[in-house]
C-alpha cells in the first residue's frame, strides 16, 4: 500500500513565457490559464480533471468566507524514526510542509455548502501523495467527532495513494481509527458522503473512502485497492485500460454517481437536502 500513484505529470506546466497557457497533462492541448482556472482545472478539450489543492477544493465546495479550519495544529509524526535509501522521513515531510504550507495530507474544517452546515475533510495529493498517516487519521477523527457534536453532515474528499509506509503499522491503524470515528456518526444517524477523486487507492479506498452513505466519484478518477502492476503480476495478464476507473467502479456497483467537478457542489447540496430531521 504505497502512496505512489502516477497518472500524468501532476502539476500542469505553463508552456509560454507569458505564463498565460496551460498544457493539459492528458490531451496536451494548450488552454488559457484563465479558462483552466475558471473551469476548476478541468480541461475544456478532453474534460480531464486535474488534481486540486485543498484550498481549490474548499473554494469549489464551501460558500465563500464560511470555512473554518479544524485541528490546524495537528501535523505529521515520525513514530518509527524512519529512514530509507533517500534519507529520513522526518526531513522529507518537513520539506513538504515548507513547500506546500500543509501540516498533513488532509485539511479539515467546517463551513456552509449551499447554505447547509457541513464538516469537510479535503485531502491534498501534494503532501506525500495524499498518504494516510497518523496526522491524517487524527484530523479525520477530530473532524468526525466535531460533526457528531454539531450533528452536521460529514464529507471527505479523498485523493490518496494509500497508507504512508514511513509510519509503518501506525499508518495502517489509521484505517480502523478513521472507520471507528465514522461508525460513531452512523450510530448517531448522521450522513457521511465520500467523494473519491484521482487517486483513491490502497488503505484509503479500503477504509473511510468506501463506507459512505453516498459515494461520488470524479470522472476517470483512479479508484482501487491493489496496484495495477501487482494485479497484473498476480493474474499474469494485462488489465483493461478502464480498470479501476470511476466509470468501472460505477458499473461494478461501488459508486453512486460520477459527477463532473462543475456540478459537484450543487449535487452534494441537493443530496444533503434529502437528509431530514437535522
Amino acid at each position: 500500500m504505497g502512496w505512489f500513484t502516477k497518472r500524468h505529470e501532476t502539476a500542469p506546466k505553463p508552456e509560454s513565457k507569458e505564463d498565460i497557457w496551460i498544457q493539459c497533462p492528458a490531451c496536451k492541448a494548450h488552454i488559457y490559464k484563465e479558462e483552466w482556472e475558471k473551469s476548476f482545472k478541468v480541461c475544456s478539450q478532453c474534460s480531464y480533471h486535474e488534481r486540486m489543492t485543498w484550498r481549490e477544493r474548499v473554494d469549489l465546495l464551501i460558500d465563500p468566507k464560511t470555512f473554518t479550519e479544524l485541528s490546524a495544529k495537528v501535523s505529521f509524526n515520525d513514530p518509527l524514526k524512519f529512514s530509507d535509501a533517500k534519507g529520513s522521513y522526518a526531513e522529507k515531510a518537513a520539506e513538504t510542509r515548507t513547500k506546500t504550507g500543509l501540516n498533513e495530507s488532509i485539511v479539515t474544517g467546517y463551513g456552509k455548502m449551499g447554505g447547509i452546515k457541513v464538516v469537510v475533510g479535503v485531502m491534498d495529493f501534494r503532501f506525500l501523495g495524499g498518504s494516510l498517516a497518523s496526522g491524517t487519521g487524527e484530523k479525520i477523527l477530530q473532524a468526525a467527532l466535531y460533526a457528531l457534536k454539531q450533528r452536521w453532515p460529514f464529507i471527505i474528499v479523498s485523493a490518496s495513494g494509500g497508507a504512508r509506509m514511513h509510519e509503518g503499522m501506525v499508518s495502517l491503524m489509521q484505517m480502523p481509527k478513521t472507520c471507528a470515528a465514522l461508525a460513531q456518526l452512523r450510530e448517531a444517524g448522521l450522513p457521511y458522503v465520500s467523494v473519491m477523486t484521482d487517486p483513491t487507492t490502497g488503505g484509503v479506498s479500503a477504509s473511510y473512502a468506501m463506507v459512505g452513505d453516498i459515494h461520488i466519484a470524479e470522472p476517470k478518477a483512479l479508484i482501487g485497492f491493489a496496484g495495477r502492476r501487482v494485479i497484473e503480476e498476480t493474474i499474469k495478464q494485462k488489465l483493461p485500460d478502464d480498470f479501476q476507473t470511476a466509470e468501472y467502479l460505477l458499473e461494478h456497483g461501488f459508486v453512486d454517481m460520477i459527477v463532473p467537478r462543475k456540478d459537484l457542489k450543487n449535487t452534494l447540496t441537493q443530496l444533503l437536502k434529502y437528509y431530514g430531521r437535522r
Partner: protein
Amino acid sequence: MNLDFEKPVSEIEEAIADLKAKNPEPSADVKAELDKLEASRLASLKSVYASLTPWQMVQVARHPDRPLIRDFLAGLCSEFIELHGDRHFGDDQGMIGGFATLDGIRVMVIGHQKGRTLEDKIKCNFGQACPEGYRKALRLMKLAEKFHVPVIAFIDTPGAFPGKDAEERGQAEAIARNLLEMAVLKTPVIAIVTGEGGSGGAIGIGVGDVILMLSNAVYSVISPEGCASILWRDGTKAPEAANALKITAKSLLDLKIADEIVPEPVGGAHRDYPGTMAATRKVLVKHLKRLQGLSSKKLLKRRFDKYAAMGRFR
C-alpha cells in the same frame, strides 16, 4: 526445514545425525557425546532465536511448518463447527470460521487459511482472502454478536488477494466495511497475529479489543520486499525495510499497537506445536475472561478509545 540463519544449529544437527549413523548401537561414550551435542544444539537454537533480526522473523513467520489456523483449532479447541459462505457470492477458502469451544468457553473463530499442501494453498489463494472472505468473516462476527459469544480472529496472511475479480467484487469495500462494523460490534473481539500480518488483508479482520502477537509473528503496513522495491528501489533491501518498518511483536508492543506477546517455544512455533498451543491458550483465556466481564457499552467505549489513541503522540 532449517532456515539460512539457523546454520549453527544445522551444523550440530548434522553432527548428531552423522554420529548416529556411524554408531547404530552407540556406546556409553557416544551416548554422552550425543547428549552433549543435543545440549549444544538447544543452546545454539536458543541463542539464534534470542537475537533474530526483523527480517529473520519474517522467515520464521512464513516458515512452511508454522502452525496454521486449523492447527490452532485442533490444538486449542475441543469443538469446531465450521460455517460457510458470505450469503452473497461464495465461500472463500482463504478465510474460514465457525463456532468453537476453548477451555470450555464458547467463541466464534475466524481467520485466514493459508493451506498446508500445494493443492490446499491454491484453494486458499495462499491465505490471501477475497471480498467474499471478508464478508463471510463479517457475517460470522454478526452471528457471534447475536449469539453473545466473543470473536477470536486468527491473522496470518501475506495480504488481501490482489486479483482482478477481487477488485471487481470490492476488495476495498469489503475491508472498509469490516473496519466500520467491527468498531461497533457488541461482543468482545480478540485479534491474534500468529504468522504474517499482511497490511489491509490483516486489519480487515483485525479490529480487536486486544491485539496479540506470537513472539515471532510480524505485522506490517507493506511487505518488506514491497517497501524495499519502492523506497530503496531494490527488492533485495528487504532486510533493511523490515528493520525500518518496525514490524516485530516487540516493536509493536512499544508502539502500543500490540497489547501482549505470546511467547513461542525455543526455536519457534513450528518446532513445538504443543508448547505453542499451551502458551496461546493461556493468553487467550485470560483475555476472554477479562473481556467477557465488561458490559457491551464499556466494551465499545474502550474499543473506540483504543483506536482513537492509535498514532496520537502529543
